[in-house]
């Protein structure tokens, strides 16, 4: 197969970037997309050029390190797939593809297709945990957890923090990422004591980081490699409403724009 790539090249955040055209010949359909880029990079290095920088690590779709836009779609055309698990058999000979980094104010560019997603870590630091020190836990079976709750919590906990949801959202909102963590912890009995504080803290941190508001466009769900559902956002909104009324009082909550 022959694939034509237009890749966003930008040396660092302060220099201007541009699209550069590359042709990759002899693409094997069993290659992953990143292996195709490896092959191109080997050629570029041999020719004395700088290889294309892209983030990747586990290459099995779980670490969340990889991700860029292929023809305007985060992680490319296959649903439920990270770009490291996207195989060339899904493309046709002669296809022309445009590769761009994830764009969002909260994700500043580092180089080429690499962005800084540390804002996600700070969202978790704002409250995405259960406060328990090592050593203080009761027996693991002391608190039964209904199977259904555990399954639903796991559905949400499957988020890999890749940032595709933010990149695809017209508002660069982190609602799916936040909703996933808030749902995961809020569905379990262990997560109840901090449930409402958690949602207030995480949502306000997201605003500080420069993530946009959710307007229910649903683009995030469409590109999520782990198929996190929009219902996690509904759950977050419900918890936020309850939390705001509980902690701020109805009047202040309305003034703060809740609901």
């Amino acid at each position, binding site marked *: 197969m022959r694939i034509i790539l237009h890749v966003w090249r930008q040396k660092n955040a302060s220099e201007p970037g541009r699209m550069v055209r590359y042709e990759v010949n002899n693409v094997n359909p069993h290659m992953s997309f990143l292996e195709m880029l490896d092959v191109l990079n080997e050629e570029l290095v041999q020719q004395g050029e700088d290889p294309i920088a892209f983030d990747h690590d586990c290459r099995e779709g779980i670490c969340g390190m990889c991700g860029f836009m292929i023809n305007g779609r985060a992680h490319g055309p296959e649903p439920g797939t990270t770009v490291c698990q996207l195989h060339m058999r899904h493309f046709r000979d002669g296809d022309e593809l445009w590769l761009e980094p994830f764009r969002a104010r909260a994700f500043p560019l580092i180089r080429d297709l690499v962005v800084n997603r540390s804002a996600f870590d700070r969202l978790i630091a704002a409250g995405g945990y259960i406060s328990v020190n*090592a050593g203080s836990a009761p027996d693991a079976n002391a608190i039964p957890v209904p199977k259904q709750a555990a399954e639903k919590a796991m559905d949400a906990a499957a988020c890999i923090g890749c940032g595709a949801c933010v990149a695809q959202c017209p508002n660069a909102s982190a609602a799916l990422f936040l909703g996933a963590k808030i749902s995961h912890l809020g569905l379990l009995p262990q997560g109840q004591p901090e449930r409402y504080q958690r949602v207030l803290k995480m949502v306000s941190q997201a605003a500080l980081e420069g993530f946009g508001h959710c307007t229910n466009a649903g683009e995030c769900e469409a590109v999520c490699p782990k198929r996190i559902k929009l219902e996690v956002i509904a759950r977050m909104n419900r918890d936020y409403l309850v939390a705001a009324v509980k902690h701020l009082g109805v009047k202040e909550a309305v003034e703060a724009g809740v609901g």
Partner: protein
Amino acid sequence: MELDSKCPSGPIETRWDRHKFELKLVSPANKRKYTIIVVGSGLAGASASATLAELGYNVKCYCYQDSPRRAHSIAAQGGINAAKNYQNDGDSVYRLFYDTIKGGDFRSRESNVYRLAQLSVDIIDHCVAQGIPFAREYGGVLANRSFGGALVSRTFYARGQTGQQLLLGAYQAMQRQIAAGRLTMFPRHEMLELVLVNGRARGIVTRNLIDGKIESHAADAVVLATGGYGNVYYLSTMAKGANATAIWRAYRKGAFFANPCFTQIHPTCIPVTGEYQSKLTLMSESLRNDGRIWVPLKKGDTRPPNQIPEEERDYYLERMYPAYGNLVPRDIASRAAKRVCDEGRGVGPTGYGVYLDFRDAIQRLGVNVIRERYGNLFEMYERLTGEDPYKVPMRIYPAIHYTMGGLWVDYNLMSTIPGLFVIGEANFSDHGANRLGASALMQGLADGYFIVPYTVGDYLASTKLEKVSTEQTEFRDAEREVAERIRRLLSVRGRRTVDSLHRELGKLLWEYCGMARNAQGLQYALKKIPELREEFWQNVIVPGTGEEFNQSLERALRVADFMELAELICYDALHRNESCGGHFREEYQTPDGEALRNDSEYAYVAAWEFTGVGNPPRLHKEPLVFEYAKPTERSYK
């Protein structure tokens, strides 16, 4: 130098409790005056960082990824063992201890392994309290499954994403400490040198991967939690960035490296498809609970699997090991796969593959049960291969997966360098010559949550540490050394890419120090590796500069260390004239092809000391004493 394991004596059941009482404590008010560096943020590093910070120490954690949540523990699929005996099937701390010692082919320390089995119980409690969404039964209690090398059901799991969930639990605990101001995270920082002051580990030198800045960081103790060195083989199930640089730099500074030839080959990986292949993908061993492994009875049978009738299939594991069947330990399953493929009965385009078939399980349990148990794994297999495992059997082949060897540590998890602790896969401590499935997560978390927080405290409380500053010569010299290494790599400007040299090294090791080894092959590898290392330093091409985001340079620095480590692995494999666990020497096997251990001569830990690049390393032996689990032939028949 005499190796002192500091293992307590007396009844094994109370050794850890007594030892804990004897460990010195740092007063709560003084803990914040101590700084501890943790390198790596996988299960071991994240749990250690979070717990040390919870205790009140000032912790700094470093990782090369963009976030600590991405460390490769995240890719562990199947589960975590714990001796809870929730299934009432006869499990106990002692049984987990015994299974682990036997699974490791009697090449691990009894005291360490017993402690690991004891702590397994606390780990599950803690992880549930953190909100890990483990699989549950309808009554709300925790579910378990079986794993290789055990006849009880003691593995806890969160679908096929157990490592991810456990890591996120530890990562969230870290983030809580970051918010509390007790922990500072340095993502996209790679440790390139260890700094010793007066013979003690007092800091590290890192490279900021975004702008290339070389920086020194001082501390009172250093904890390495940088994982295994499987990527020395180029193709492995490890993350692409996983590397041995941190432990290798410590080895060069005087930390002994133990049992480097104990590498684990995982039996259920997706076979290689071509030269461009960048890594291998594992399919969880839990699949062997319901999948049946087979190859055609006849050589060169190229019919599609579904057209091969039952009587012309060889379910070779069930045939050779009727007691454990498809659930034999990893090393045994891997070697059996190699043997049938070497006989010419392998399947797939390369002939290096065997079938893992779910036909019977689907007939017995229904497709829905199989989907619930393995749905995400089946989906992943289909995504990678384009084949539907509900209809056609999976094709699998062994691949490098885990390294039991690592830096030598005593019972306190401290290396031969005072103040340098090593935890998780980076040390050698608990798995002997072969690790059982679902035990890596257990060890990483035991080390990080429940062992090193105590033993680091003991070191700090019992040692008089002078103040150090990153301005002093030891740090300045280390920075200069790192800068010089980078300058050399950038100035070669040869003709071969880092990857092409790394791939060549990997092939050499896989061929001569992989699933089966012999003296002649190892001697050949020991001749070739220095030549390849020379070629690397003469002919590598690393584009760009050191003062920018430069992924080629990152790789070059890692591969430069692999070029030295590969030699040590072969020295160790050549000296160990026996077969045990993952180390199979063709000269030492039973008439029916099983590993032949030599307890009278090799029941010891081989701890190697660095004597200079290209020089043979110096061997130190730590004898292994078995008071409880008496060495027997490891039979799974």
